[in-house]
């Protein structure tokens, strides 16, 4: 199927589109011909069993891996479009305004909480310091910008309830607070698209609830679209608008949380099938799936069946 360049452009409400992305590590195919898109202002969840390739998708989207094949398009709110697979990781954050967190938290443990948030504003501050030269000479506008940066950091510290820990080393925070801080740090880069890799991992139920509120307010107040990897189904069901399910690097379901929750393939792949029953269940489900698809074909053709 050939497409004209204009047709490749994202529609206005799409913020990210992944097309036919494949990622190989030597002989291992971590992602196989994956396509999906995320809508502006929505929370898109990427779920799947361990080793399904979710983090790999993130690493491709944020430039830490180069996909073996396929395209990743990102559209900013001002209409600018980027081919993320051609950009390097720091450009993706700086220019395309995609920000991310890591599955195993990567804070600057020896810097204070506040400094972590200031490092995130590096590019803006570099510019206002005249690439250090003017700042060294004590240029006024830089001093103001530095103060503003601290205020922005303070704002995010308030959002994550960490103002009282501002001057402590980030490595000294408990796990849940480190996770929140990493999100705040990602937000301090001023992203339009935020990728969170298992933000609720290791949180207790109360913290998990707080996280939901935080993510909602990020989306609503800051006009940021989110892509999140999550294992905790309650989080996924509560806050996501759209769910993409991966298994063995391929997409097995894509739709609203409700749709995905009732998709037999997802149930088989993801929601608690004992190891020794897998084959049985798979057979059953295939039968069911076939029936379902026959019904679909018999009935009206649906646009987004897969």
């Amino acid at each position, binding site marked *: 199927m050939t497409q004209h360049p204009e047709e490749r452009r994202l529609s206005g409400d799409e913020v990210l589109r992944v097309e036919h992305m494949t990622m190989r590590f030597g002989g291992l195919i971590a992602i196989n011909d994956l396509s999906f898109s995320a809508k502006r202002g929505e929370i898109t969840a990427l779920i799947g069993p361990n080793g399904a390739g979710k983090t790999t998708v993130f690493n491709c989207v944020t430039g830490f891996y180069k996909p073996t094949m396929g395209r990743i398009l990102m559209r900013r709110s001002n209409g600018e479009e980027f081919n993320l697979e051609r950009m390097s990781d720091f450009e993706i*954050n700086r220019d395309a305004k995609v920000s991310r967190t890591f599955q195993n938290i990567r804070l600057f443990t020896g*810097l204070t909480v506040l400094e972590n948030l200031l490092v995130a504003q590096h590019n803006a501050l570099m510019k206002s310091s005249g690439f*250090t030269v003017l700042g060294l000479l004590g240029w006024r506008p830089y001093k103001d910008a530095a103060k503003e940066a601290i205020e922005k950091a303070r704002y995010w510290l308030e959002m994550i309830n960490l103002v009282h820990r501002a001057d402590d080393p980030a490595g000294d925070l408990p796990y849940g607070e480190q996770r929140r801080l990493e999100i705040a740090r990602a937000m301090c880069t001023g992203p339009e698209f935020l990728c969170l890799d298992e933000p609720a991992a290791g949180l207790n139920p109360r913290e998990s609830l707080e996280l939901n509120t935080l993510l909602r307010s990020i989306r609503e107040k800051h006009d940021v679209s989110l892509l999140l990897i999550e294992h905790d189904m309650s989080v996924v069901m509560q806050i996501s608008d759209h769910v993409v399910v991966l298994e063995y690097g391929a997409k097995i379901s894509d739709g609203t949380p409700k749709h995905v929750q009732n998709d037999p393939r997802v149930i088989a792949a993801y929601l608690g099938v004992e190891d020794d029953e897998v084959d049985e269940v798979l057979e059953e489900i295939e039968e069911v799936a076939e029936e379902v698809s026959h019904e679909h074909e018999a009935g009206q053709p649906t646009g987004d069946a897969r």
Partner: protein
Amino acid sequence: MTAAAQPPRIPSDDRLKWALREALFAGLISFGMFVLYVGLETTQNIRNQLVLNQRWGLLAILVAIAVVGRFLIVYFIGPWFAARKAAKAAKTEVPTQSLLRRNIGWIALLALLVFPMAMVWLVGPQKSLKWVDNYGVQILIYVMLAWGLNIVVGLAGLLDLGYVAFYAVGAYSYALLSLYFGLSFWTLLPLAGILAAFWGIILGFPVLRLRGDYLAVVTLAFGEIIRLVLINWTDVTQGTFGVSGVPKASIFGIWSFEVGADNNFAKAFGLRQSSAYYKIFLFYVILAMCAVTAVVTIRLRNMPIGRAWEALREDEIACRSLGINTVTTKLTAFSIGAMFGGFAGAFFAARQGFISPESFTFHESAIILAVVVLGGMGSLFGIAVAAIVMIGGTELLREMHFLKTIFGPDFTPELYRMLIFGLAMVIVMVLKPRGLVSVRNPTAFLHERKAVSSAFTKEGHG
């Protein structure tokens, strides 16, 4: 080793037994190690025959030192440290810094400003030379070099084993350009820094993609390459003969220190000819250069670029996820560090009047790096103290003539420099694994400035 593993609370009777056993083992081990090295010595006699000297006395002394030392460590020092550690852990409140400690920088600066004058006043111009030049200037050169390297290693976490290359670039830039083109110290000083920074960038581009051990090895090789070029490019650098007759620095071109010059400083002021004036002048020049280095480093650290360096040391991948161009960030650290090395090099050439590739061996890089590590990576104060201890210490060794009465007339204490260096390194690393100053001062704060314990900071991986 075993001392640390042993719990602090043991009945003292048992501890005595245990200490004695440890001492016995130490004695056996040291006897085994030293018997062939120290106990027996081979020399040639006048007829070129190999003779075997037996030195049982010396061997006995060494073994005795090991036995007694081990006993003391296990029986007294070990428990004492454990108790101190426990006491430290018990009290958690941060001690408020005293007036003296808060203003230590200013006090040190004041002391340094009066130091040469005080020396002249105390021991006279001619004798003051030793103190001002051998101690003052020598130490300050290393302070400046170590502060320069600190930007690369301590802040950005890039292990650079070839830092002396930039020192050499600075020194040769000044020596050659002043000899061939007759440019003055004050025009060449910035130029030497710029050239060194330029070489820093040239080297940095290919090298900074490497990380950790690879970076260390390649920078080491670069240091050697520069030295080999200096040795082999004889047309320009005169190879191993070195460049001699490097012009002295002048007081901004107004007064000169060249002996024959009309505007000679001593002549102009009607003083007796002495090289002391030049050394005192040099002392103030290097002091000013150190001050500039410190101010620039402190300011840079508080700027976005400095914070990015430290963030780079902590986690490079996280930096890139925040949109920081790590290549240019590393390059700035590398080239600014190199620039200070270049300044120091130009100064070194003006001070020595003679430079040769001999002065820029790996040994030099190792000393500078040792000073940075001992001082506590990132801490200017700690590094300055480490430089004073290490460089001043080796100079002091020359003075210790009384050691000859103990070890015999052909004992030259300077030769044991490296041994003592190593010992100091081991001691500091055992007692303070993160260097003399092992806390990090945050660059910004919201409520109050709290020092960050080095337990949280990282050393960097590239």
